[in-house]
């Protein structure tokens, strides 16, 4: 079967299985895995090319790591340091040591045991984050703890990759030249430069130099990210071509992956680092939105290939042993997590979510198996069954989530007091458009200590704002995916302040429809635009020129000799009347244009206002000064 036809089969399987799995409450990851099992081992539609497609699909992991990196602002990492080092660090260490010990008991060499321990200590970021997000469990204490651990694990991959070559020093002879057949057996084993036959830069280096090279390359990426990549993105953004920006984002990720392949390092590691470097850049949200769909699709493909690559022959040869191994691994990891969760104050449902959710082995295992095979640490006789075990733990994870949801969580909530949820910092605010209007609103909110995410499509404005210390992100705010990655579903307030009248209405309409829980305030061009925006779903629409014009009218009156307080009162009267008119005319207005009834109502209102102002000028009973006029002379009761 050629690659195109195989791709078609994969997509068909995904399109059928994933929505079905989601409908049944199993989550998308299990859907992909099942789709893979069906087209692979069960129906036998795909087979030999699984390995080829997996090389391609592993790019999903690479992109996911880039996205995880993008989320990791150095400041946030620093804030989370206790959780990362304590909870995450102890999970990785504890699980790695125990798994290694177990492997030693099974008679595996110590280097290989250590490698296995490290590899299997990691959990599946893709499955867990996806599932927590889908089930809305991210904000719980268990969800937050899980996120910290996953983050630590993703970072821990770096030292692991650096350690692997050192473990190989005394390992199986002939392994680490990269041509040994240890890498060819497992479906995922040889994706990363090793084992492809082409010698990499790395293979020519002595082992100690490999570790040094890893560090040098990491440093290189950090420096290049700071000095080269950001200016390049600025240049591309100025061209204002959305597809070119997407192309540039892909180019960056693929480029780094290729470079890493060339030197013989993990592409996932490289892109992860690039993500961290770019995480506090103004292009973060746009990059996220551009890469996200590719990641999702490729990651899906990756899971399908995992399903398709399950070696049923092998499984059937020793079903009890392999399933037992998978269950044992999960029990061991869950045990470590349970103890740590207890130590870090997780109770009840949260503790169960934390320990069961992270008990599986992760997609990194496939990547690291490949690396370890290439370095000659692990042989096919270990990797083949272990790959199966990893896939089995992943298959079991959605079932554990179901167990948690249906059995453990309801019971735990009933029997144990849950600590009060942390109060979120006043809710976040997203401002779209940072032109003349958006800028003032944003400054006011930011100086009052609120977290504001700003989106704009003018690179120059963004650049200027970041120079004076504002966090603004480049991107077209009318793009649904950008709004999504700006965190609109968790936002309390959305302020639409685009210059373009039509785009503004369109934006409000989209946000109102997609995020019904978010309050929308919108800048309106004029009176009719107010009605348009209200109809599109804005909760509040302000004419952008109204208040400013009122202030100028008041100043004009003061300038020609009115007492300032009198001028202020007149502007208030005018404002109130105009607001009443706005309300009164709403019914008569329709989108097709102004009808006769609208014009009539408008006329009537102007007449009233004129009368009112005339009264203001001459009459004794002055509405705008009501209560500040003296009582009439000669009232007998005074």
């Amino acid at each position, binding site marked *: 079967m050629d690659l195109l036809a195989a791709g078609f089969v994969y997509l068909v399987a995904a399109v059928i299985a994933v929505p079905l799995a989601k409908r049944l409450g199993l989550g998308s990851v299990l859907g992909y895995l099942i789709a893979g099992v069906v087209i692979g081992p069960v129906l036998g539609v795909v087979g030999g090319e699984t390995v080829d497609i997996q090389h391609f699909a592993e790019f999903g992991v690479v992109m996911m790591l880039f996205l995880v990196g993008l989320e990791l602002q150095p400041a946030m990492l620093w804030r989370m340091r206790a959780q990362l080092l304590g909870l995450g660090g102890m999970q990785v260490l504890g699980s790695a040591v125990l798994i290694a010990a177990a492997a030693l008991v099974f008679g595996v060499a110590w280097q290989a045991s250590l490698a296995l321990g490290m590899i299997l200590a990691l959990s599946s970021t893709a499955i867990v984050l996806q599932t927590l997000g889908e089930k809305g469990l991210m904000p719980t204490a268990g969800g937050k703890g899980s996120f910290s651990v996953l983050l630590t694990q993703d970072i821990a991959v770096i030292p692991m990759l650096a350690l692997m070559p050192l473990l190989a020093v005394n390992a199986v002879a002939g392994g680490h030249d990269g041509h040994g057949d240890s890498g060819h057996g497992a479906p995922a084993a040889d994706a990363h430069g090793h084992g492809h036959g082409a010698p990499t830069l790395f293979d020519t280096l002595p082992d100690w130099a490999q570790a040094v090279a890893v560090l040098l390359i990491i440093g290189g990426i950090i420096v290049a990210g700071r000095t080269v990549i950001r200016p390049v993105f600025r240049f591309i953004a100025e061209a204002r071509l959305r597809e070119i920006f997407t192309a540039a984002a892909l180019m960056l990720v693929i480029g780094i992956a290729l470079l890493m392949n060339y030197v013989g390092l993990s592409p996932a590691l490289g892109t992860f680092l690039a993500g961290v470097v770019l995480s506090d850049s103004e292009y973060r949200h746009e990059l996220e939105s551009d890469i996200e769909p590719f990641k999702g699709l490729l990651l899906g493909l990756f899971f399908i290939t995992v399903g398709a690559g399950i070696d049923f022959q092998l499984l059937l040869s020793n079903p009890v042993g392999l399933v037992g191994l998978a269950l044992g691994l999960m029990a061991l990891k869950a045990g470590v997590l349970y103890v740590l969760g207890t130590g870090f104050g997780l109770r009840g449902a949260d503790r169960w979510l934390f320990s069961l959710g992270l008990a599986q082995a992760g997609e990194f295992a496939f990547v690291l198996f490949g690396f370890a095979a290439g370095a000659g640490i692990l042989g096919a006789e270990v990797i083949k069954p272990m790959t199966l075990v990893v896939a089995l733990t992943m298959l079991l994870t959605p079932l554990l989530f179901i167990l948690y949801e249906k059995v453990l969580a309801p019971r735990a909530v009933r029997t144990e007091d849950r600590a009060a949820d942390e109060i979120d910092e006043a809710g976040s605010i997203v401002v779209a458009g940072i032109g003349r209007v958006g800028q003032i609103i944003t400054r006011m909110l930011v100086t009052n200590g609120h977290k504001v995410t700003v989106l704009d499509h003018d690179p120059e404005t963004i650049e200027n704002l970041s120079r004076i210390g504002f966090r603004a992100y480049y991107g077209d705010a009318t793009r649904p995916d950008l709004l999504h990655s700006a965190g609109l579903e968790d936002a309390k307030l959305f302020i639409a302040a685009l210059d373009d009248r039509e785009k503004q209405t369109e934006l409000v309409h989209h946000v109102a429809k997609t995020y019904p829980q978010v309050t929308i305030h919108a800048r309106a061009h004029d009176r009719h635009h107010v009605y348009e925006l209200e109809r599109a779903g804005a909760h509040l629409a302000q004419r952008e020129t109204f208040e400013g014009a009122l202030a100028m009218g008041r100043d004009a009156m003061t300038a020609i000799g009115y007492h300032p307080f009198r001028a202020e009162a007149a502007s208030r009267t005018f404002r109130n009347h105009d607001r009443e008119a706005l309300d009164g005319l709403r019914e008569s207005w329709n989108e097709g244009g102004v009808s006769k009834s609208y014009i009539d109502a408008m006329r009537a209102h102007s007449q009233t206002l004129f009368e009112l102002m005339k009264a203001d000028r001459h009459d004794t009973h002055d509405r705008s000064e009501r209560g500040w006029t003296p009582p009439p002379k000669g009232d*007998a009761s005074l």
Partner: protein
Amino acid sequence: MKALVYLAHPRPDRSEINAPMFEAARGIEGITCVDLYGEYPSFEIDVDHEQQRITEHDAIVFLHPLYWYSAPAMLKEWQDLVLEHGFAYGHAGHALDGKVTFNAVTCGAAAEAYTPEGANGAHLRDLLMPFEKTADLCRMRYLAPFALFGAGRAVEEGRDQPHLAEWRTLLKALRDDRLDIAAARAALSLNGFKAAGVAKLEAV
């Protein structure tokens, strides 16, 4: 008696007594509660709306901290605008005749300061004379103030909860016409109803 509680506090977020008192009043059925600073953040009081409101109620309570022996500016603005000639006073102004009114205030200084011998040289009721005279002019029935002294230390000293409980009892008694109005008008304070000679109140 339909009662209306006006809160005049510019920083309810920093308030330890007034805000809880307002919340407590809000929780009582039959009491209308209005946060003046919340409703008119730019001091633009809707006079017609306010006049309508007080016309519809039989008792008007002003809940506020004591600022310079008076109320925060908003309440003064409310008086200046809402108590119009021809509405509240004057030959044709009879809208408020017979309505009951009093101040529920929090004071910074201790109770001893509010005596002829104390630092302020007068009883709180005497210091609030402008409110009383305004009520008289509007032909309303002015009651003694309901006060919490040393309000800044009330929470630390555990006096806030008893005060809130007494406040609830008072409002319910007012609502259910169980308050001896004549005695309450003659008293120095509405606190400790029994001591003030007001009808004995059971916790409702």
